[in-house]
């Protein structure tokens, strides 16, 4: 409980910092009065149309990835699992890439997140079709690998056939992941999908706890592994798909955050879900702030920064696991 409250306080602090820090030069009081009271036309525009959606999306995206990662690790009983394993994020990226390539985005701005969400939804349907009604975790993962490979191949094809280097670079920059230049429309599109995913996973806690003891014991404790699989796959897909649709490819958060918080939460998968969501939100809000403070003139991408921090950490995790099993 203490950990959850501390993380919630940290998220609140970073959320406010995210509202107050940016290239437009005005003081914190002016910023907050513009946001809350609508005072100062230009400041109101910056606060309500640029910084507020960015801070909200940072919070929602981070929480989604942290929660999805904790659920995925619990379900697969593996500390190295992450939401991307089921192939939903690459399929969401493919939807976004097609929207960019086809010019739909130029005609209708929300086309990008909508196409990404459609890609994620298609991925879920394909996952269930490929893995069958009683498919175990291995079949789901193999289906996820196949979807990732398919999405990767199709994205390469789009880039390959790109009419000009500008179109290609636009796609590549989107794929790097960012929260810059997002609007409240993005928030309204992603938030309900994320809420549905979070709701599905909130009900998975008991099943994930039981699964700690293996599938046979989980069944003997009254848990249906098939029901749990549907819940987890849908929940993770909704969260990771919606996060990708508004922020692009952001890796490692869903892998690293649950891993870091596991021991502090006592090891029960259900006890990890909320702290992991808060931890994910804190990491993304902090990383997004860092992109604004480090090289602000070069538009450092959020996904690049999380990968730069996450990859060495992942290597450290592998080495620790190797040491523990020797």
């Amino acid at each position, binding site marked *: 409980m203490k950990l959850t409250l501390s993380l919630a306080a940290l998220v609140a602090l970073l959320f406010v910092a995210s509202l107050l820090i940016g290239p437009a030069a005005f003081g914190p009081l002016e910023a907050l009065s513009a946001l809350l009271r609508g005072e100062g036309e230009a400041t109101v525009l910056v606060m309500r149309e640029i910084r507020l959606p960015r801070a909200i999306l940072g919070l929602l995206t981070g929480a989604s990835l942290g929660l999805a990662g904790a659920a995925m690790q619990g379900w697969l009983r593996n500390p190295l699992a992450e939401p991307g394993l089921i192939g939903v994020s690459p399929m969401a990226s493919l939807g976004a890439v097609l929207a960019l390539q086809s010019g739909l985005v130029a005609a209708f701005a929300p086309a990008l997140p909508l196409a990404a969400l459609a890609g994620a939804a298609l991925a879920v349907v394909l996952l269930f079709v490929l893995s069958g009604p009683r498919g175990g975790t291995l079949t789901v993962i193999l289906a996820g690998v196949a979807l990732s490979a398919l999405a990767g191949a199709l994205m390469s094809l789009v880039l390959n056939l790109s009419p000009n280097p500008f179109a290609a670079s636009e796609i590549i920059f989107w794929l790097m992941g960012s929260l810059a230049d997002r609007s409240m429309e993005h928030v309204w599109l992603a938030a309900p999908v994320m809420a549905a995913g979070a709701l599905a996973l909130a009900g998975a806690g008991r099943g994930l706890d*039981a699964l700690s003891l293996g599938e046979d014991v989980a069944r003997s404790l009254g848990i249906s592994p098939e029901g749990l699989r549907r819940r987890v796959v849908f929940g993770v897909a909704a969260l990771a798909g919606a996060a990708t649709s508004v922020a692009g490819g952001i890796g490692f958060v869903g892998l690293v955050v649950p891993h870091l918080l596991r021991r502090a939460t*006592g090891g029960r998968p259900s006890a990890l879900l909320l702290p992991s969501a808060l931890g994910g939100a804190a990491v993304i809000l902090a990383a997004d702030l860092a992109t604004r403070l480090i090289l602000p003139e070069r538009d450092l991408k959020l996904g690049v920064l999380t990968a730069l921090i996450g990859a060495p950490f992942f290597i450290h995790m592998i080495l620790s696991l190797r040491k523990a099993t020797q």
Partner: protein
Amino acid sequence: MTALEVEALSLTRQGERVLSDISFTLRPGEFLGLLGPNGAGKTTLLRALQGLLPHEGRSSLAQISAEARARRAAFLPQARDLAWPMAVRDLVALGRLPWTGAARSDDHRAVAAALTRMELEALADRPADRLSGGELARALIARLLAQETPLLLADEPGAGLDPARQISTMQVFADLAREGRAVVASVHDLGLAARFCTRVLVLQEGRLVADGPPAEVLSDSLLDQVFGLRVWRGEAGGLPLLAPIALT
């Protein structure tokens, strides 16, 4: 009133008959030892009678809903499997999962009682990854006990335990049976089965070859026929002793 009814249970796996026509009825108060050489079908029977494996025939446990079954029977599999390094107390508390809606004080009492029975109070707050293999095995048995079901199914509960702990674990199961619960445990140690079980059921190549009190069932000819063993017999404190001494 019966704790478990199994009628003509058979199981075929990839064209091979693994269990053939097993029937028995278990009553509260019985501690049933499931005996047989490796590959005789003990684990398969324990899983099939809960409906964990597709089978022919009938098991009263396999016919009820998963939720009702979780409140009727607790299961300890052979594998000492725990994915996350949770504290022993939290691990034992997983046994309370079927009892949603139970008072929190009931859960605390059941967990504390299970920890006491398995002599784990001193280790209650230790993370499971800092336990020895034997300590983890005892914590997993305590999880089974915390489920507080009328029927307990345990697959080789003594595996990985030192001789003293094997005896105390069998004693715990015998006590539970005396208190009115029913216990089915697959056991390899014939001496412990003879001493603690009220009844043994002997399997050979998936068939039930003997069923009855250990003193009657574990005859020299049966042990020779099923296990290929000769045994030494004795008595201590009014309890039978039985130790394998040679292959026949």
